[in-house]
């Protein structure tokens, strides 16, 4: 539908005859209300009586609550969107520079104290404006895994489960293919890149970089002229 055309049609000034008919309709409606008013208020009085007698007239949310919430005891872990097309993620874990982390951390005392880290770890986390730090995503005990906020261990290849806890809208788009990138084919087995493939989890914003060269201009033409004229 073309909304602009539609709007133009809507804005066409009305003919005077139409306005007069509109007034007539208003008059008719008002008189009908006046005639029917006693009947309507009578019906309302009946409803009040029924409520007093204990017959449910409106559905009360509070009354209809189940006595026990079956899911209240055990929070369910997020398990993806069942209606999203199935996928596998391009594995990343074994390509990480310092993986397995336990190669060093097995010999180190775990220190949960927030502090400035030394190399090879980033000194400052450019993510979350200081609201998060290492152990919000990395496990203290099992260094080779991440964890969700609820404490479930997450493989490095499934990092999207960790990211999606805050970035749930993006994550949903990613599950369905509106965010992120599919590899190789448009049909058949769906392989997609993980969040951390494109975004450095410790500095996730994508940095500006140089573009490829602009298209060639035909000899004798200046590419900017037209644009500059318009700008001025």
């Amino acid at each position, binding site marked *: 539908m*073309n909304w*602009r*055309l539609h709007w133009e049609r809507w804005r066409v000034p009305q003919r005077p005859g139409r306005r007069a008919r509109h007034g007539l309709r208003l008059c008719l409606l008002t008189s009908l209300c006046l005639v029917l008013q006693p009947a309507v208020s009578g019906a309302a009085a009946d409803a009040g009586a029924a409520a007093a007698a204990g017959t449910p007239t409106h559905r009360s949310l509070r009354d209809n609550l189940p006595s026990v919430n079956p899911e209240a005891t055990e929070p369910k872990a997020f398990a993806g969107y069942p209606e999203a*097309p199935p996928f596998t993620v391009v594995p990343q874990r074994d390509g990480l520079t310092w993986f397995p982390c336990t190669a060093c951390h097995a010999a180190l005392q775990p220190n949960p104290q927030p502090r400035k880290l030394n190399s090879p770890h980033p000194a400052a986390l450019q993510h979350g404006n200081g609201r998060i730090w290492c152990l919000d995503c990395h496990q203290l005990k099992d260094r080779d895994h991440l964890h969700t906020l609820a404490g479930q261990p997450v493989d490095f290849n499934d990092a999207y489960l960790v990211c999606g806890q805050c970035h749930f809208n993006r994550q949903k*788009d990613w599950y*369905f*293919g*509106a*965010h*992120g*990138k*599919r590899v*190789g*084919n*448009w*049909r*058949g087995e769906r392989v997609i*890149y993980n969040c951390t493939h*494109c975004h450095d989890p410790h500095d996730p914003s*994508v940095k*500006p*970089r*140089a*573009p*490829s*060269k*602009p*298209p*060639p*201009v*035909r000899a004798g033409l200046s*590419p*900017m002229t037209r*644009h500059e004229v*318009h*700008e001025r």
Partner: protein
Amino acid sequence: MTDSHETPQYAGANHIDQYRRRLLGGLAAAGCAGVVAGSEPVKAAPAAPAAPAWGGGTLRDMLGDLFQDHYQRMTADEISAALARIERRAKARFGIDITCEDTKPIPGVLFGYALNISKCKGYRDCVQACIRENNQGRDSQVQYIRVLEMNQGTMNLETAEHYYDPATVPVAGKFYMPVQCMQCENPPCVKACPVKATWKEADGIVVVDYNWCIGCRYCMSACPYWARHFNWTEPQIPAAELNPVTNYLGNRPRPRGVVEKCHFCTQRTRKGRQPACQEACPTGARVFGNLLDPGSEIRYVLANKKVFRLKEELGTEPKFWYYTD
């Protein structure tokens, strides 16, 4: 049509007009031979000892090109003969064995494309990938994708800039909108073509038969998206960079004087692969897929994101959507 026997002034000239011009000489020679020998003048074209009158390849190839029918009217045998001619010509010109195929549309598939302009940063990686994939002339202006740099908050194509070249992109206050062939469902270019050298295939891709195009460029003026391009010169491609996987209605080496356009990489997509621009996009802004498959990614985008089509009011029904987050 050219080969190593050519004289320098004909090097790289495999343009159809020139076949025709040189053919006159060739026909005369072959005709004489036929009269003298009295049998099969066409097949009897001898191996040229020096630069022959028709400029290179065999007379049979030349005649085959000249009398080649419209793609849609060719029989399977004629098509395979045409493909073989294309491969021979590329071998003669570039010294490379290419494969030229005639991949048919996949039944039940209608291709659509969606592009996230919130994600596009104007890197032009898609443009470069397209040039390499589709064997476009390296210095010609033929680039299927034109990335427009636009002022944020506007949709004015008149002030869009596609020659932008800052040190880094994205530039503050700008957004980037790549424009390529929209593969319209109601394509004005097809209506404009006087010889029906361009048409819409069953999978929705608007293709060009480069052998049938007469180069009148009516389609270019009919296209509201500036998506069709004319080969003013024969596309110059370094032999080492030639993409040897080609398709008749796609990226096969083109002659001078014909119009070409984005064809959603028929040589890839009809075999299930992603188009080269999608593969090259570093931001994942491009979503390609089958519009007839309700579970496809592009259908999710169309149903759930804020989408628009460029110049939708023209009624061309593009199958290329832009969306925002």
